[in-house]
């Protein structure tokens, strides 16, 4: 009460006004201007990432929309092909009708741009590698946060960081040169002939690509799961252990459920990374844009398609614009995944605060 009285008194006001005036005077106009200019410059730098995201969307769609003007949207989903019939007596082939199919054939007389085979490749690889790296990543995350001692943690964490630091080309090359052929030999004969897999014919295929992509995703998921688990308050664990639960019961029934949104966010983020991975799938997924239900057949992803075909496509031609459209589709999908992650994590923060 007394303090407020003092603050409201006329004398205090006069003094503080005088103080403020004195403080303001020595700061010259030049100084204030300089501060202002610097602040504006820093603001421009701070806005750069937002500008970059906006520009990425704008330029991808700007180049991609052109393709939509050249070819109707339906042609990007299913393509029309002639059904021909060969007459062996006359030795002629005649067109007997047309059928709808899903063909990506950008370089031919009648180019066909169905993105379905590319999406099949992208999502197939992303799902398989998300499955593998969920198993491994969540396992490592649990190990790091719940089981490992401080010393082993200090060894394993940097090793995972090293794994993150390996260039994707190196992993792709390793899979291509060292792993792919032995896996094929293993699966289709040799020592494991009793395990004969009749449909594993090609050494470079969707599965090998997904395995390579997993190497990139595992450390991402592992460290995010580790963070999510460590953010769970220790009180919860202590309470669980105090009522007689074992360590594993505590992890499985208490810690993991408490961190479930963090783990979920990690998985979505990993899936997004797998969807955007380029070099590994380009080098060891076989690069054939066909739809096969068999996961041991070659596929081509959206990313690999852009990377391998853009060099040959004429800038300004239809093919290049279509590839930009594929890129726009890709960036939209990863953007949506990111939004989902953002929402999940925000929810998770609120829950942790409770």
């Amino acid at each position, binding site marked *: 009460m007394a303090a407020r009285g003092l603050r409201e008194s006329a004398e205090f006001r006069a003094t503080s006004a005088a103080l403020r005036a004195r403080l303001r005077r020595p*700061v010259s106009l030049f100084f204030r201007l*300089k*501060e202002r200019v610097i*602040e504006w410059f*820093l*603001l421009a*730098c*701070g806005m*750069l*990432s*937002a500008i*970059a*995201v906006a520009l*990425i969307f704008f*330029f991808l769609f*700007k*180049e991609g929309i052109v393709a939509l003007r050249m070819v109707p949207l339906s042609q990007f989903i299913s393509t029309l092909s002639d059904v021909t019939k060969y007459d062996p007596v006359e030795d002629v082939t005649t067109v007997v009708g047309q059928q709808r199919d899903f063909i990506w054939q950008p370089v031919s007389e009648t180019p066909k741009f169905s993105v379905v085979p590319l999406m099949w490749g992208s999502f197939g690889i992303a799902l398989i590698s998300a499955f593998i790296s969920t198993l*491994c990543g969540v*396992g490592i995350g*649990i*190990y790091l946060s719940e089981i490992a001692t401080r010393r082993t943690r200090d060894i394993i964490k*940097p090793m995972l*960081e*090293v794994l993150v*630091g*390996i*260039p*994707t*080309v*190196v992993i*792709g*090359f390793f899979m*291509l*040169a060292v792993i792919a052929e032995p896996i094929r030999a293993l699966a289709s004969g040799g020592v494991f002939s009793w395990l004969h897999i009749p449909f594993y014919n090609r050494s470079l295929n969707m599965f090998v690509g997904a395995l390579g992509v997993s190497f990139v995703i*595992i450390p991402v998921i592992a460290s995010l799961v580790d963070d999510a688990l460590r953010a769970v308050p*220790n009180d919860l664990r*202590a309470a669980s*252990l105090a009522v*007689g639960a*074992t*360590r*594993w019961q505590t992890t499985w029934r208490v810690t993991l459920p408490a961190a479930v949104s963090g783990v979920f966010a990690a998985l979505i983020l990993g899936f997004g*990374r797998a969807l*955007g*991975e*380029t*070099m590994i799938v380009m080098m060891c997924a076989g690069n054939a844009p066909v739809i096969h239900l068999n996961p041991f057949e070659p596929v081509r992803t959206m*990313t690999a398609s*852009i*990377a391998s075909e*853009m*060099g040959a496509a004429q*800038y300004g031609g239809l093919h290049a614009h279509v590839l*930009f459209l594929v*890129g726009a589709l*890709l960036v939209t999908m*990863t*953007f949506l995944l*990111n939004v989902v992650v*953002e929402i999940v994590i925000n929810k998770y923060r609120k829950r942790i605060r409770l």
Partner: protein
Amino acid sequence: MSAAPHQFLGRAREAVKSRSRAPLWALLFESIVRGITGVVLVALLYIVMTIVWHGAPRLDWEFISQAPRNAMMEGGVFPAIFGTVFVVLFMIVMALPLGVFGAVYMVEYAKGGTFSRITRAAVNNLAGVPSIVFGLFGLGFFILFIGKNLDHYAFDIPRNEAEAKVWEQRVAPQVKAARDEAVRLADEKSLHGGDRGAFIRDYVSGHAPVMHKKVFGQGAMFWAAATLAILVLPVIIVSTEEALRSVPRSMREAAYGLGATKWQVVSTVVLPQARTGILTGAILAVARGAGELAPILLVGVAFSMPGLPLTEPVNFGFFKMPVVNPFSEFMHLNYHIYTMATQQTNPELSRPIQFATTLVLLMITLAMNLGAILLRRHYSRK
């Protein structure tokens, strides 16, 4: 995490153990988790060891210092190392100031609210954008938009077919004049038949106005570096933010107390305190930039070049030397590995070279990553 809860947990664990033994499936799951961790770490070691094992025999000084010879089957990879190093150098020169200043604004100046939320979301999104999309963006924005327009205004190169037509119409009189002159000269020399045609063609192509060669509107080291700079921006921003936030509040307040302005506080107190963290971020960014191929695949990487991407010797007054030409194509270690391993008719023949190139790349990136890890550990202990 402090030690006290751990001790408490340990004691609780002991108490539970003495009453009921862990069921078998719990033991099983725990060993599975341990096993998974072990398998992944062994796989990591296996990758590194295999590449060292196969790459080391071919790796010598000649391999690092020589250009490739004999259709890439002999010699070294020096031009690729050169290209990698300079692209990354240009990249960090562009990205570091922008990222650091951006992070300074976010931490020191922004007062929360919409700006912070948008920027945070943008940084997260930028980190999640697929790397090939950066390549497409580099092509669409830097080369096809900025580069093409620069070329158009600086060297009068048409940007599209309509402008190309206008250009042709504009130079048509000059072409016609050159042709007339050629015909006149041919008549003077009384050339006939094929000789006459060849002479006229040569004369016209030599004297008619020629379109300037593209300078900015094509793949170049500079555009590749700019593309990578946007890619690594989130890495630098996030680590700089972390470093700035770790500077104690009291230090800022002490500086304000002495009458320093905001920028003086930031530039003389906060930034110097945060320099180790910023350096760590920069090293991580360089390692990331050196390890990416997809973004630069579409913006100027070349499989083989006649020489290094240098300019004509530049006169520095008392000595002359060539400098790096940022608007030239370049070779790159990643692209070298990729092309050698996938685009050759028989990639098995050059496997030793591929392994050795991979080893060089791995050594560069791992050394930088380890350096960043050690640096971070050092300053987080302090």
